[in-house]
């Protein structure tokens, strides 16, 4: 089959690799119809996530048709159309029973590696380094899905791929980012990053009752999308104005009630601190570049929530803990427990309350994955979201 493989830093290539096979009794093989490039794939692309190996199949946002099922998969039938959540979860451990699916205690065969880096291991993920299991990803014609009786969600034929594909990651991730803000009537929510996850976080914040949603980015086309489709009420272009000053004046000095970091470890800004962070990241002195996070903490109003859904992998310097403690901020974070949100969000899509397909700007055949990565990475041609058609 054809699959998009990680070759090295800023180098991916579609190669011929052997077809996946059933390895466990609860596996299924999915024939991928649509798959997407995620912002977090760019961290892999830029070589910032350790334990990637040449040849690793990328991709954790995908959907398709059930091709084959293991003997213990009772809920799926061959031919059914499913969306697959990006965390791999067994459904039986304590974390899964508590619906913390991204913390599944059984799905990472390389848990020891994650333990060394993070102290404990989270769930395994599709196509996201050996640290997180070494599972082949879904930017491919076929993919093996472990615990297929727990993860994949059947989707009705009436909905297009692009309407439901993002249930696999970015829609629930954005939703969880907003949910973690404990939004109350009158709340002002600021969202750093108007990429696809940021757009869905804004949309969700509005759905959950936020009075105002402020989008922060540096690309006018992304800020326009936030205003037109994402549900943002106001926007800040951080290349034009000082974010802190702007948020203060927009909230009459209070600061936002909640701040969402939908940027993660490769944030941009200007100034000497940015140059220093960037240099340290290149020199491997600091794996993550936390500018958006620092700014979100500084801007957040007293007693507010900082919700972190952007991906961080390692350590950060100059973390403003003093602001967190003295101003009583709450920091909440996590890889999304996708399984928890898929069904309710699918229902919202079916009811027409939500149409996530607005983020899609580019559709390419799987064979052109490398071009998709380059375009998405460099924000060429107003790129917001690339969907790869595998079949």
């Amino acid at each position, binding site marked *: 089959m054809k699959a998009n493989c990680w070759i090295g830093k800023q180098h991916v290539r579609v190669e011929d*690799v*052997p077809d996946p*096979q059933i390895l466990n009794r609860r596996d299924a093989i999915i024939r991928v119809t649509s798959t997407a490039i995620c912002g977090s794939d760019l961290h892999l692309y830029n070589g910032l996530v350790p334990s990637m190996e040449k040849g690793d199949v990328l991709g954790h946002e995908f959907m398709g048709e059930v091709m084959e099922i293991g003997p213990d998969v009772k809920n799926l039938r061959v031919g059914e159309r499913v969306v697959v959540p990006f965390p791999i979860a067994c459904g039986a451990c304590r974390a899964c029973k508590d619906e913390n699916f991204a913390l599944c205690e059984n799905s990472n065969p390389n848990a020891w590696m994650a333990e060394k880096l993070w102290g404990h291991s989270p769930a395994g993920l599709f196509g996201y380094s050996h640290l997180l299991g070494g599972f*082949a990803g879904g930017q491919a014609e076929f993919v093996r899905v472990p615990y297929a009786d727990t993860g994949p969600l059947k989707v009705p034929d009436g909905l297009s791929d692009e309407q439901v594909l993002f249930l696999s990651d970015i829609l629930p991730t954005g939703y969880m980012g907003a949910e973690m803000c404990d939004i109350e009537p009158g709340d002002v929510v600021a969202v750093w990053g108007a990429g696809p996850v940021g757009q869905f976080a804004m949309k969700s914040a509005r759905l959950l009752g936020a009075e105002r949603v402020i989008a922060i980015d540096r690309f006018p086309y992304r800020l326009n999308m936030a205003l037109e489709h994402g549900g943002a009420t106001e926007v800040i272009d951080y290349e034009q104005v000082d974010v802190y000053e702007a948020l203060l004046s927009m909230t009459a000095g209070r600061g936002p009630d909640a701040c969402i970091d939908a940027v993660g470890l490769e944030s941009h800004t200007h100034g000497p601190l940015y140059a220093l962070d960037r240099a340290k990241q290149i020199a491997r002195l600091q794996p993550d570049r936390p500018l958006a996070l620092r700014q979100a903490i500084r801007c957040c109003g007293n007693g507010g929530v900082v919700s972190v859904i952007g991906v961080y992998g390692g350590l950060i310097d100059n973390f403003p803990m003093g602001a967190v403690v003295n101003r009583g901020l709450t920091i909440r974070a996590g890889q999304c427990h996708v399984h928890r949100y898929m069904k309710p969000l699918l229902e919202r899509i079916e009811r027409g309350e939500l149409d996530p397909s607005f983020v899609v700007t580019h559709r390419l055949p799987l064979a052109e994955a490398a071009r998709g990565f380059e375009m998405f990475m460099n924000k060429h041609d107003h790129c917001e979201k690339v969907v790869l058609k595998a079949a």
Partner: protein
Amino acid sequence: MELTQTNRLTPGPRVSAPRGAYRALAPRAQARASAPETRALGLGWLSVGLGLAQLIAPRQVAQLIGVDDDERTCLGMRAIGLRELVCGIGLLSETRPATWAWARVAGDVMDLALLGYAWKGDPPSAERALSVAGSVVGVTLLDVQAAYALARDGVAPLAHGVRVRHGITLERSPDEVYAFFRRLENLPSFMYHLQSVTESGDRSRWKAKGPAGISVEWEAELVEDRLGQCIAWRSLPGADIGNRGRVDFRPGPGGRGTELIVELSYDPPAGAVGAKLAQLFGREPSQEISADLRRLKQVLETGEVIQSDASIHRGLHPARPSALSAQVSERKVTR
């Protein structure tokens, strides 16, 4: 219950720890029980160091102790170096340390004689002669003392054993976990270094892959077996690798399934050196046990050990579907 023997390995604290304080396992260095054995290891390393110096740089050593540095002396020096090295490795291997200590005493006497012979022709300064001869006599006294002490105490079994303790929490009742574990035949399904365990009555026969792929076997007996609470076993005399193990099952707080705590200890072949070598060539035993427990959890909670495209090979491999995957061990799990 033979656990008194394992307890012996934990040195008594000088100040009693508060009740409920976590006590880590005694690290290997502390696990060395007796002073003579510690000294024997020190002498072993001394021998190795000296022997290597004499083998590699005989001329410099000759100059240092004030004897001729001609070809003949260098050759003799190398021979002595070889003897030192053999003695050192013997002591470090911790098998029959008393014999090796006595061998060192004999070597010391020989060294004194050779020194006297060498100095007869060309005596060094009185100062140097005194310091060199003094050192050799001093070491001789230490060797005699160590040899006596070791011969008196005999070889303490399991004194240098590798000990590992690990725990895991499983979403199953203590009775279920106990029942699975108690069928010792189940152990190889998650303890990958085990090839088989067969039970007959109170005894069981274990087959395992040792370091460097060597197959090792032993017979073991249960020393404790409490339904839903604890299983303990130890190898019988004649085992390739002496070992013992204990597993406790206790209910997790607030309905958190079972807390399983396992403690294993074993005598690596060739003592401390063997343990170090095994670590170099294989994985850390504590990491091995932790991986075993994780697999046990997978088996009991989800029915089988999870595989990924990378885990079906040894080591790191590209996470791409493999043509080999069809051969993946259909590890049979009896439940």
